[in-house]
């Protein structure tokens, strides 16, 4: 059984069908890059996996937790997959430490002391242990994104969804975030990332998914997908002729 099973998933916004039957199975420890033009449905697919968008058809399960539209199932599912966003979405009224502690104490009912120790450990892991008492608006974009990663990791998920996590960053800050992701991948974390960083996808990912018009158009190891694209759409997307 795969860790993440996406079967015949369909999603429509009104009359507009964005996902037209997606099938994708992800094994534990895999790092998957989802690439494609904007509007191809790649972000929507990611948001469906943890129930931020409800699917119109098909099924999704993560380590046995089904995606169903009720609070209990959603919570079970979301405890298994963390998500990191393009806009960081840190809680501006809490310190860096508070951001990482909050969901542990509120959702998992972890004792305050344990949660703080976990927060410090995760912040150290992303190289920001010294910013524990700072507020998000005192950090650079790259630092904020690393805090967001620490916040997701503190919930001990089995997989992470990364939705264009470097797209809102200044070019010089991209590397520090990717370095953290690269480390996570090396430690065996299962990752699904929508990304425009082709070089990173080629270096780190085990498989690349090319989406086009709501379907998985091509899929394979990065070597194949990037060096030997089969369809004209992927060739055009990659700029090879």
């Amino acid at each position, binding site marked *: 059984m795969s860790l993440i099973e996406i079967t015949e998933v369909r999603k429509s916004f009104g009359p507009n069908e964005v996902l037209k039957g997606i099938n994708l199975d992800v094994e534990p420890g895999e790092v998957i890059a989802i690439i494609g033009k904007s509007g191809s449905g790649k972000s929507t697919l990611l948001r469906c996996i*943890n*129930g*931020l968008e409800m699917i119109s058809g098909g099924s999704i399960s993560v380590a046995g937790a089904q995606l169903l539209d009720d*609070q209990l199932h*959603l*919570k079970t599912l*979301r*405890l298994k997959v*963390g*998500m990191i*966003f393009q*806009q960081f*979405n*840190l*809680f*501006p*009224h809490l310190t860096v430490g508070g951001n990482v502690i*909050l*969901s542990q104490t*509120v*959702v*998992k009912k972890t004792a305050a002391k344990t949660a703080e120790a976990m927060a410090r450990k995760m912040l150290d892991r992303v190289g920001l242990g010294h910013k524990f008492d700072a507020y998000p*608006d005192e950090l650079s974009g790259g630092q904020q994104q690393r805090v*967001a990663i620490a*916040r*997701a990791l503190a*919930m001990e998920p089995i997989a992470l969804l990364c939705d264009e996590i470097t797209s809102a960053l200044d070019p010089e800050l991209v590397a520090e975030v990717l370095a953290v992701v690269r480390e996570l991948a090396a430690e065996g974390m299962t990752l699904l990332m929508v990304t425009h960083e082709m070089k990173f996808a080629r270096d780190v990912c085990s498989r690349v998914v090319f989406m086009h018009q709501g379907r998985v158009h091509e899929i394979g190891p990065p070597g194949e997908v990037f060096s030997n694209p089969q369809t004209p759409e992927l060739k055009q997307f990659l700029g090879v002729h």
Partner: protein
Amino acid sequence: MTEFTLWDILRNLLLATRWTIVLSLVSFVGGGAVGLLLLFARISARKAVRVFARCYIELFQGTPLLMQLFIAFFGLGLFGIAVPAWLAAGVALILWAASFLAEIWRGCVEAIAKGQWEASASLGMGRLQQMRYVILPQAMRIAIPPTVGFSVQVIKGTALTSIIGFVELSKAGTVVTNATFQPFTVYGLVALIYFALCWPLSKSSQILERKLNVAHRNH
């Protein structure tokens, strides 16, 4: 004929001002509590609850406060329930204030970026937890200035309760005028007292707005 000094007039008005203040506080605090419930109903996940809250708010915002006072005072009387003026005044003002506060606060909650809901949901929080720990603490900051501003409306709203016979500042003004035949002096003083109550509130609302905006600079 008895002569009334200015102090006689002022003293009686100030005694009645106590009731204006008490009624304002009751309306504001009670309206805040009911308003908070309405706010949750207004943004509830269930459609029927949302529709109920919207109808309530539109009904109370779309009819004059005076009519609401009449209905609370005379309406229940029709069913043989004797409602004292203070009770009718308190209930009507609480329900009226709640409809406005709920709508002010809804605006503040909706001003919080969608990403805050998504991030907290992704971390596994339920709707109430999201509100309690993530959304309301941020919404409260922006809600303080308009809420304090609205308290001025509540104070001025209490003047209407004089019509159903509740003796607060305005009603006392009428009573004192009838005894002294000095309407200009009496109502002038009444107006000054209202101003003394309201002006510090509107001023502090302005100051709070400026202060909280500075604290909000980078978000």
